[in-house]
């Protein structure tokens, strides 16, 4: 009966083991630190100092944004500052971009000739890096970042205004374009230039 005894002991050991190994640990709540769920565009009129603020928001974190309609005045010159936030975490992503300015660049695209200056449709696309755009800031290597830009409006017109934030670690250069690196932000606002 030796064999039988072995088997009994074994089965018992297995079942005891089976029952005792319950644990119910849950993964810790991780904060999605890299999510950008709030984008703020502040157009400041260079002459009057008037500020026009427009936002894009994703309160649910699902990725589907709601956009304010951009409305700025015709025949004026604006300084645009762009801010990126993780509102859910109360965190400013803009600061990180400033710290790593040599790895980031913002590119713009808009309805053709909607602005008096820059003319054209922006600098997004493989061969468009040197297309007209008025960057006001630069990184440690003398390359533009795009957190601050200048825009001059002409006649009243409506269209779209797209912002693309690229993460270009190791490959941001005088010739890098919006097709290099990874896209951190790609959003498109409706825009109206009004009298």
């Amino acid at each position, binding site marked *: 009966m030796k*064999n039988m005894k072995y088997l009994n002991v074994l089965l018992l050991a297995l079942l005891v083991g*089976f029952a005792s*190994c319950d644990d119910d640990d849950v993964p810790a709540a*991780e904060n999605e630190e890299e999510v950008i769920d709030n984008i703020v565009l502040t157009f400041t009129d260079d002459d009057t100092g008037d500020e026009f603020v427009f936002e894009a928001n994703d309160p649910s*974190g699902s990725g589907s944004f709601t956009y304010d309609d951009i409305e700025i005045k015709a025949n004026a010159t604006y300084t645009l500052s762009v801010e990126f936030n993780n509102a859910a975490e109360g965190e400013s992503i803009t600061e990180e971009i400033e710290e790593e300015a040599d790895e980031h660049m913002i590119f713009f695209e808009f309805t053709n000739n909607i602005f008096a200056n820059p003319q054209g449709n922006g600098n997004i696309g493989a061969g468009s890096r040197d297309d007209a755009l008025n960057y006001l800031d630069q990184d440690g290597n003398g390359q533009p970042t795009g957190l601050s830009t200048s825009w001059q409006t002409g006649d009243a017109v409506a269209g779209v205004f797209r912002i693309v934030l690229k993460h270009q670690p190791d490959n941001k250069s005088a010739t890098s374009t919006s097709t290099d690196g990874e*896209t951190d932000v790609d959003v498109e606002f409706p825009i109206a230039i009004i009298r």
Partner: protein
Amino acid sequence: MKHLFSTLLFLIVSTLVMGQQDCRVNCSCSIKGKIVDAQTGKAIEFASLQIKGTSKGSTTDSDGLFEFNDLCETEVDLLISHIGYKQLTHHHDAFHNDPVVQLAPDNLILESIVVEDKAEKDLSKSSSISTIEGREFEEIKSESLGDALSSISGVSTLTTGSNVVKPIIHGLHSNRILIINNGIRHESQDWGQEHAPEIDASMAEGIELIKGAAAVKYGPNAIGGVILINPPKMELSSHFHGDINLQAESNGRALDGSFLFQKGFENFAWMVQGAGRYQGDLNTPDYQLTNTGLRESSLGVGLRFHKRQWDFETHFSHFEQKLGILRGSITGNIEDLADAINDEIPDFTEDFSYEIKAPNQEVSHDVLKLKASHNFTNSRLDLTYAIQYNTRKEFDVRRGSNADVPSINLELMTHTVDAEWLHPTVNDWEGTLGIQWLYQDNNNVEGTNTIPFIPNYNNGRIGVYIAETRSLSTNTTLDIGLRYDFQNASFRGRDSRNDIFIVDENFQSVSGIIGIKKTLNSNSEMRMNLATAWRPPNIAELFSYGKHQYTNQYGFYRYTNENGNITTDVVLDSDDLSVGNELGYKLIGTYSYANSKIILEVSPYLNVIKNYIYSAPSGIINTVRGTFPLFVFKQTDALLSGLDATLKIKHSEPISSKITGSYLYARDIKNDDVLFNMPANKISYQINFTKSLGNVEWDNKLEVSYNFEQYNAPRVIPAQTFVDDRNFNPFATDDSNFDFTKAPEGYTLVNASSTLSFKQWVVSLRGKNLFNTTYRQYTNLIRYFADEPGINFELGVQLKL
């Protein structure tokens, strides 16, 4: 179930009641065997044998056969000697019948060895088994496990660049094949296509591959086949021996080394082995593959104690690896993907470097195995306990303080207990009864600063099986087997609002096998078996959530799809959605023919898989980072059918050649559609030239292989289409699967090697992709972005101790 247990009970009772005569009682034990020349394989006549500690001796006859009769012991030490050959002591026990002793001539580097009848492995005699061992294995063991296996027809590789290599057997990989490393089921995060098995092939002595659905003995997941990785055997009464290997490679400027030392005493044997690899960026014929470096190290220690009927074995191994993934293969949204596909040379390509930056993976795997065997008079009981600890960290390209924080950080602990009883022969039935228990605990390590891709989970599983074999006539053997498994799994994770969810699920299934082996005549035999296997849906298929490389991927329980509107803020369970087990039915036959000139082996197979699970693009999702392809898991029925063939021809000395080919046809038979990432067909021709120059053996090989284009690939919708039209619906008029690029064209590769062996030294020079061909492989996940590596020279030196 009831039937299984009553069979089990019957077998136990019949053993005890009938209990065959113990030969030791009346001194009627016997040993038979054969002695051959290790170099030529020819029988040695007049070799002398003696049983250690006694005066009993014997010599071999003209066929090299010897026999001892009227022994009072089943276990003895045999001293074997012959003039001009190296002497050998062999420990014989009752469970390794008919030893074949290969005596090495004195002047050769070869050691004398004993090849024992495989007492337990070949239980399923009807299975199609391929083996790589000996010199053939030594030539490829510095490669990854997947690459080493791909020299077997019917095996291909699923890769992510050159560092992450997974074996594909007959079109199936990952959770659909089982890897048994040193007798233990290798348990890791194998749900990921870019998660390679954490095993160093250079620590093994040989690899066996079972191409059938061998689930009965090995358990769930063996739908495509089973890979057995066999470490060096710890032989008793063996002198100090082993080897030291060093290898340098031109592509990647890699250095690779391994060592093995072992020794056996009368009741005790030990082994120590280690291996390491240091590799920098690889290069294609035209450019550097930046960030494809690799570091790997492994260590193994084994001890064996033997005392009369008892045999104890313990084995510990540690493996760790850090591997870089091509920097240019990481893209953001679909526009970035389109840009990367269009780039001739991948983004971020730099000069050669050994440095590994993000993206990379750091993995480790530890195994402790304890095994006890007890030989009864005519049965044997094996008990094995193993603990495995697997860690995986994946680093992505991230911003700021998260750059050094892994995006995936997992710990997996697995305990297994296996009990197997080789029962005494009952009415001509030989076989085993077994019970296998497994407990797993998988946890996310805190601090990734991103929502976990898979939740925490625990698995408990118990399986019982019986596998029997019986001779029906002198030339026909029948195999049958049956298994039942029950698995309980509890999943604990966080939903999109960081709220806790807990889902508890049970899975169970029965698997079976029936097969025959028939010897047709003295030259040919036929094996055929029909086997079923199953697997429960894996963790990623049920619960994966979020961004993984350039896709957003959601498991069955993490999304709902209402008229094309995909919602991902839900957590379902089996009450909401029934996700069935994958059930595989595989029929495989093998016809083999051998005479003094040729060896032919042909294996056709047919595998039908119900509830086949795969991930496919099902649309696009708009996020703050732009448009992403949205991948969800789907379930269908698949058919995989094909043929493997190998023909070896011995031309006049010293030339021989080998032709291998594999063909696979795969289809989604429910939706009449093609399947993703099925390996393309392949043929290869190899010519060998071997010559002995005095004490030096010179062995040369030239191999030409052609890989066909995968003609059975999905339709193509270029990524650019999604960029040009942000609301493009790929399924508007056609609901079949699609891919972003066409399958790569067919290509020819030429490899060659030349090996010199003299005394204890083996020096080899190998060239791979000798014509520096530019090509891409369909089953490489980075084929969108970069070419495969170009020419590579490997110089290896081996010292045998």
